[in-house]
């Protein structure tokens, strides 16, 4: 198993470098740069412009700049944010805690609810459980999150005044209770998007494995139907479920852009939106690289989990 993990990590390195190359080249090709903004607002002449370019290292050829940037990444240096003149890594460091708090809460919440409802609807197909979770999945995956967010804010923040509508702590104390209060609404919104997928994926995978021969064997042993469902059917259905969860992790880390924006959550998502608005390429590239690292790590973790879940995969590896 140890060798398998090392093999997967080594395989991930060229993929990571490839991603950084594409990210850098695409950012470089995009029209508009922070220099242009400064130049047009300050009315610089050609000499001053040249000096500015040298200061930012923009006079060098693209490939050279790429390698300088790449070497920086390996040392934890993602460049300086052109809109704030603060190192990108520092800003991301300040923001990532908030994003992880939101996304991890949402992830755990959606796994618990989604997988549980999926199991229940497979345990008793076409029952009331099945129908309720089907409607739930339908709403969750078909309604845009900003709409659900606005409806929830209207109900719980404006009308009922139970929960705050924005910020991480607001003006209140920086304690856990206050955080939880601020966290509930955005976490529900973020998890709503993936719960539907989890329900459907779990139900489908469960119903498939329930029809397998070994389930008949398990039943013939005289163990309870619930034990058959959980120990035998769910255990075999876990691979597609874990895949679904793995696929939505990077989405949750980088993708709560809209939700963070609506709830003024001080995370990576709103940082990304600001960076795009201000042509802050170092910031955009930094965040993109961060997300791609998360994707790569999640993929390695998934492969290891697969091997653990299915001994046949471990045997091939």
């Amino acid at each position: 198993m140890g060798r398998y993990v090392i093999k997967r990590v080594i395989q991930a390195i060229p993929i990571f470098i490839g991603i950084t190359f594409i990210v850098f080249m695409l950012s470089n090709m995009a029209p508009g740069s922070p220099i242009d903004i400064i130049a047009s607002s300050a009315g610089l002449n050609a000499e001053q412009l040249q000096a500015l370019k040298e200061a930012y290292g923009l006079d060098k050829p693209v490939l050279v700049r790429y390698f300088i940037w790449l070497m920086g990444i390996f040392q934890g240096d993602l460049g300086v944010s052109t809109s704030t003149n603060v190192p990108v890594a520092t800003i991301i460091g300040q923001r990532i805690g908030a994003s992880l708090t939101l996304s991890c809460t949402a992830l755990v919440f959606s796994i618990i609810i989604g997988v549980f409802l999926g199991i229940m609807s497979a345990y008793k197909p076409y029952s009331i459980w099945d129908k309720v979770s089907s409607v739930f999945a339908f709403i969750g995956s078909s309604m845009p999150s900003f709409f659900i967010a606005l409806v929830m804010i209207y109900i719980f923040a404006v009308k009922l005044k139970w929960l705050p509508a924005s910020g991480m702590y607001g003006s209140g104390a920086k304690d856990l209770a206050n955080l939880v209060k601020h966290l509930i609404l955005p976490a529900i919104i973020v998890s709503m998007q993936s719960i539907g997928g989890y329900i459907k994926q779990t139900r489908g995978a469960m119903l498939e494995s329930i029809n397998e021969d070994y389930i008949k064997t398990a039943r013939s042993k005289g163990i309870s139907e619930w034990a058959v469902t959980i120990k035998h059917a769910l255990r075999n259905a876990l691979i597609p479920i874990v895949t679904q969860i793995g696929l939505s992790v990077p989405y949750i880390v980088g993708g709560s852009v809209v939700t963070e924006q609506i709830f003024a959550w001080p995370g990576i998502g709103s940082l990304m939106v600001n960076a795009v608005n201000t042509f802050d390429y170092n910031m955009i590239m930094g965040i993109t690289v961060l997300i791609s690292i998360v994707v790569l790590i999640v993929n390695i973790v998934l492969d290891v989990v697969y091997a653990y879940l299915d001994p046949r995969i471990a045997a091939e590896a």
Partner: protein
Amino acid sequence: MENSILEVKNLKVDFIMDGERVNAVHEVSFKLGKGRTLGIVGESGCGKSVSATSIMRLLPKINTIVDDCTSIKLDDEELTTLSDKEFQKVRGNRISMIFQEPMTSLNPVYTIGKQLIEMVQSHQKISKKDAFETCVEMLEKVGIPEARKRMKEYPHQLSGGMRQRVMIAMALVCNPEVLIADEPTTALDVTIQAQILELMNKLKEDTKTSIILITHDMGVVAEVTDEVMVMYAGEVVEHDDVKEIFHNPMHPYTIGLLDSIPKLNQNTERLLTIDGTVPTLKNMPKVGCRFADRCHYCQDLCRTESPALKKVGTREVRCHFAGNLKAKEDK
């Protein structure tokens, strides 16, 4: 046959298909003697597997109706009135079952040992260590070499024959009174088939377990069973000791089955077959003999009146003209 361990009376199973209630098994009754092997024979779709799986209560509840008049007695204890929870104590423990597909019948994600131990621990209060030893012993009994090592292996590391041995070990590890084997050798190649049959014969002598063997292979029947029950279209058509049936088949269907076994000493160009196929559940004849359409001896009476199961000596046979068959002239 005073000492019967399993007594099935009037087993009647209906399925709901597309909102329509169709009959799959009709008035199947038999007694299984202690330590005996009963072969249930018939072609695909004759209801032999359905009968056995309904005894185990393994049919999907959602579209199956087992009629109220059905009585299944295990050692004089009525099973049909037990709740599902009570029946769990019977299933696997007192009646166990092995299936046709050894390749897919074991759970691929658990070790052999874990699956065997689960069986033991769900019926006996026994420590994991003792259960492990019991299982190793059982694996050795079914002829698995290096049983202790195999306990830690996964099903994909074993061959089909080995997996079927594991299934047999699992079915017998709780010392059941009855073992139902649903085509246990169909998916195996012929040499392995012979080994498995020999193993079952040997184990039956050791453990005194009674066996219901479901098969469509008359050769298998001749080799291991004491008595045979021939089923056709959900009904028992003939039932007697295996030797009696092979020497003197009385029902036209049994005659056809026996004739269609290829014989080396006959120089026939084509194998003999029974014309036609089993009527589907939805096209089952409502009146008359269910075999009439395929029968060489069919008379007018066969079309208008359903034959009852007649007793002729030890023989039970469902034919109006049993012992008095006359071939139709036009055939």
